[in-house]
């Protein structure tokens, strides 16, 4: 178990930002905390990172309570921050090598730290920018450097908070590929927050939907879609007339359609229940 959270509560004054949140993350999993703004995602993540103290509940990350995690514990966790303009005058390779040097005392024969600087620069596609000043990087390059900094200690758990906010679609796709390759090649466990469904769908094995400080749902993409959006949508025309029908069993429905009407069925279209529908349905339900 990499992350174990039970009955987590966070209270500011008389407002519960998190209310009885429980979940687990298993080794090698990619888990997305999905939810609208203000759902409590960032608060949850900051508690797990040890940056914020909780009001109540039990939290364990890599076998320790983050509120009392020591430097050895800190060395096993990678945090991908949304950088802005810190270390602007540092050169890319210089910064990465420097931040990596903090992890060297925590290297073991079975788990070498830090990551070799040049290898990591190549892995994140910044080999050509190695000698460039950080402030001269493009937005997408800078975000890749953020990932490299998060990964430089070869963490067992990588935590990303809204990693693609403000990126254009191209940079976003590159970013997803990068995170996936880290996970596939190194078996890193990943916990990320996002309010973007497509992102959760593309990256995560499991999704936790957080809404109003509570876990509204959790499961794989397919499970969530089936459980909450329910029905697929089938559209067709019969001798020029258009029909629309919702059904949980779209394949069987189409088979029956052809059996009864044969070749008169035209323009057949089946839309599977998407996670987007599931998500919107959930948020609507939580708000009403």
């Amino acid at each position: 178990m990499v992350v174990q959270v039970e009955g987590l509560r966070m209270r500011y004054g008389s407002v519960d930002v998190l209310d009885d949140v429980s979940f687990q993350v298993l080794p090698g999993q990619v888990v997305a905390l999905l939810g609208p703004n203000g759902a409590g995602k960032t608060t949850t993540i900051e508690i797990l990172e040890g940056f914020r103290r909780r009001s109540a509940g039990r939290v364990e990350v890599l076998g320790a309570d983050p509120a009392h995690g020591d430097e050895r514990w800190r060395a096993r966790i990678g945090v991908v921050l949304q950088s802005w303009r810190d270390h602007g005058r540092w050169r890319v390779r210089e910064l990465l090598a420097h931040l990596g040097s903090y992890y060297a005392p925590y290297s073991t024969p079975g788990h070498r730290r830090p990551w070799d600087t040049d290898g990591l620069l190549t892995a994140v596609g910044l080999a050509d920018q190695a000698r460039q000043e950080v402030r001269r990087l493009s937005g997408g390059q800078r975000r890749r450097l953020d990932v490299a900094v998060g990964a430089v200690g070869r963490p067992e758990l990588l935590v990303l908070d809204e990693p693609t906010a403000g990126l254009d679609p191209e940079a976003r796709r590159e970013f997803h590929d990068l995170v996936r390759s880290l996970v596939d090649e190194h078996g890193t466990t990943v916990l990320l927050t996002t309010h973007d469904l497509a992102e959760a769908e593309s990256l995560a094995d499991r999704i936790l939907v957080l809404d109003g400080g509570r876990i509204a749902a959790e499961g794989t993409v397919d499970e969530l879609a089936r459980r909450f959006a329910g029905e697929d949508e089938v559209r067709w025309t019969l001798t020029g007339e258009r029909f629309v029908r919702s059904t949980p069993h779209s394949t069987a429905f189409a088979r029956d359609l052809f059996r009864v009407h044969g070749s008169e069925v035209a323009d057949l279209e089946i839309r599977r229940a998407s996670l987007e529908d599931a998500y919107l349905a959930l948020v609507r339900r939580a708000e009403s």
Partner: protein
Amino acid sequence: MRAGLRPGLRRGLIELRQAVTGADLVGHLLWPVVTLVALVLLQHRDLGSGLTLGAFAVPGVVGMFVALGMLLDVQYLSADREDGTVLRARATPGGITGYLVGKVVTVSGTVVLYVAVVVAGGALLVDGVDLRTVDWLTFTWVLVLGLVATQALGLVLGALVRSPRSAGYVALPVVGLIAISGVFVPVTALAAGWQAVAQAFPVYWLGLGVRAAFLPDAAAVAEVGGSWRPWATAAVLGAWALVGVVLAPVVLRRMTRKESGSSVAARRERALQRVG
């Protein structure tokens, strides 16, 4: 705690190199050079008892720049919190130690650069400043003790200041303190009340200590009690150093505990609104 020391030292040297290359060097050299020009122009003004302003003020200005290192700490700490540098350090094992060690190395190095400019320029251009008669032993302990005191206090102030904008307000009392600390004119020329205030803070004692190292013993007549008061200098600078070294870890721990992604994001929002 010890884990971050060596990376911190490297960090300090890297940022020191950044501070003395390109446009930053011009910014750093501006103040010592401008001060030096003013001293050269006014050096022959007579302060009485055989002292000229130039010879009196060069050591005082050296002490002043050591004290001004505090303002560099305040600026760096507030800017580094706003842009997420401190949070980055917090996310790294031993990172906060490394960050602070690095900052002290960078700022101390910059202060030593200021001091070198004033001392070298003073020796070349100001009559009465003679490096052959300087008591280097006294100069060294005053400089080291003064750096420890002002750097520790600078970090404390930097941790207490909330934004780069308020960092500007901290400069006001410090400049005021310098004005009453007998840097350019002997403190004995001031009213007794101001003299007492000045003697409570390290700026005056830094100036006095460096003057003791630079000036002939006869020049001590212009000082309070007609003496260099080396023991009192060591005691006051030592007391401030102790206060700073005891307070700094507590205040800095409190500061870093508050750093998180959302606090940096909130400050970024505010900063962008200021610009926009």
